[in-house]
């Protein structure tokens, strides 16, 4: 199976776009007056969180479609989305910690968003462990789909439960909570940088999912070949 030309093009586009977004963060967006340079973590922090959430939504939707249609491809989409989501939410948590250390004076607080993001991470690690424990590929796909749906449903409920307590996490887009620590008003340049970051990370996401699905298909081919050799 040769690498499709479209994927090659997308790879190059992704690399250029990532470089461009990084350049915008460093040279275009102004330095925030109070927080200083550490605020620049914000652009990729939000973008990574966005891609993470998008991935898990993808996984849940792929799960539903798989249960209805029983096509193998949707299982591959599900795994691809979950694996990528785990990485991006991890990036999101780590960049958040880097920012929180100087601004909140701590690496970690038990704030609803932080806690929910970590619980979400654990849900999807459990998803991978579930898949690892099942040998029959058809059953593995079914159970994966079911758990992706249940997990995705539970995450917002967890967030809502913890949210009832007061949060200190800043809400920069739409809405301002006066008690939040480290909030700021975005200048147009900052907003543009953030939007570019989100778009670029979304392109990166599409590129990675494509690669991961292709990898899954190749792995299936290898498995089939091995099976045929044994006969």
């Amino acid at each position, binding site marked *: 199976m040769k690498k499709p030309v479209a994927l090659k093009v997308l790879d190059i586009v992704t690399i250029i776009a990532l470089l461009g977004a990084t350049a915008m963060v460093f040279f275009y967006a102004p330095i925030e007056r109070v927080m200083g340079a550490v605020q620049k973590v914000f652009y990729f922090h939000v973008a990574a969180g966005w891609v993470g959430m998008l991935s898990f939504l993808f996984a849940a939707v792929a799960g539903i479609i798989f249960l209805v249609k029983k096509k193998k491809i949707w299982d591959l989409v599900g795994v691809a989305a979950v694996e990528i989501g785990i990485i991006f939410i991890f990036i999101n948590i780590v960049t958040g910690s880097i920012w929180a250390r100087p601004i909140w004076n701590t690496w970690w607080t038990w704030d609803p968003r932080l806690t929910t993001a970590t619980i979400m991470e654990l*849900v999807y690690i459990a998803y991978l462990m579930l898949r690892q424990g099942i040998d029959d590929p058809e059953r593995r796909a079914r*159970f994966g789909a079911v758990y992706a749906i249940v997990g995705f449903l539970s995450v917002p409920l967890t967030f809502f439960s913890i949210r009832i307590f007061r949060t200190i996490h800043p809400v920069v887009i739409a809405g301002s909570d006066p008690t939040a620590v480290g909030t700021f008003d975005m200048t147009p340049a900052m907003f543009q940088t953030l939007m570019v970051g989100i778009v670029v990370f979304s392109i990166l996401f599409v590129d990675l999912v494509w690669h991961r699905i292709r990898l899954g298909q190749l792995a299936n081919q290898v498995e089939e070949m091995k099976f045929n050799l044994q006969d």
Partner: protein
Amino acid sequence: MQPGSIRLNTKTSFTKAMFAVVWKDLIAEVRGKELISAMLVFALLVIFIFNFALELDPKTRSALTAGILWVTITFAGTLGLNRSMAVEKDRGCLDGLLLAPVDRTAIYFGKSLANWIFMVIVALIVLPIYSILYNTNIISPALLLVIVLGSEGYVAIGTLLASMAVQARTRDILLPILLFPVILPVLIAAVKASAGILNGFPLEDLQTWFNLLIVYDIIFTSVAFMVFDSVVEE
């Protein structure tokens, strides 16, 4: 009906099938006494471990009681859920159940209901023992209501995940890992409501948590109901 023909009743009613599963589980438990006794002994051990680990004394414990209670119920619950599905799987009972010409969700609701009854029974025994051990009375109708509501959400999703976990190679370790992150919203609401009751807050203040518990119960039960078919189909 023609004389001599056999009346084939291929469709047993949903509730009848469900209660047949519940009844089977209860009879098996009365005769074997495996599940509740194991859950109970385990629950007591957890309380004793907490006693030594946290050095519970009258001053600190009032704030901790709700948490300890729910950790105990949650841990004992996983034990029960695992066992309840493992016995079905081991001797091919699950296949027998699935072959029966009834709606498969009736089997799910039957198993959930049985697990729910077991959890509530364990809680009903643990509460007085806890009261005696710490010389306070923690039993109240409101707390019982929280336990009933909380364990409903717990077994709704727990029964579904347990029936997946027993079919995996790593089944003994898998259930808690699958269940705990997903069940968190129910647990948060249950602990908050229990803590409020134990601290003697008026029930109106706890309305939010009760509402949340009911909402979570409904959501989890209906999702499990919708996807259970794909967990057991072969």
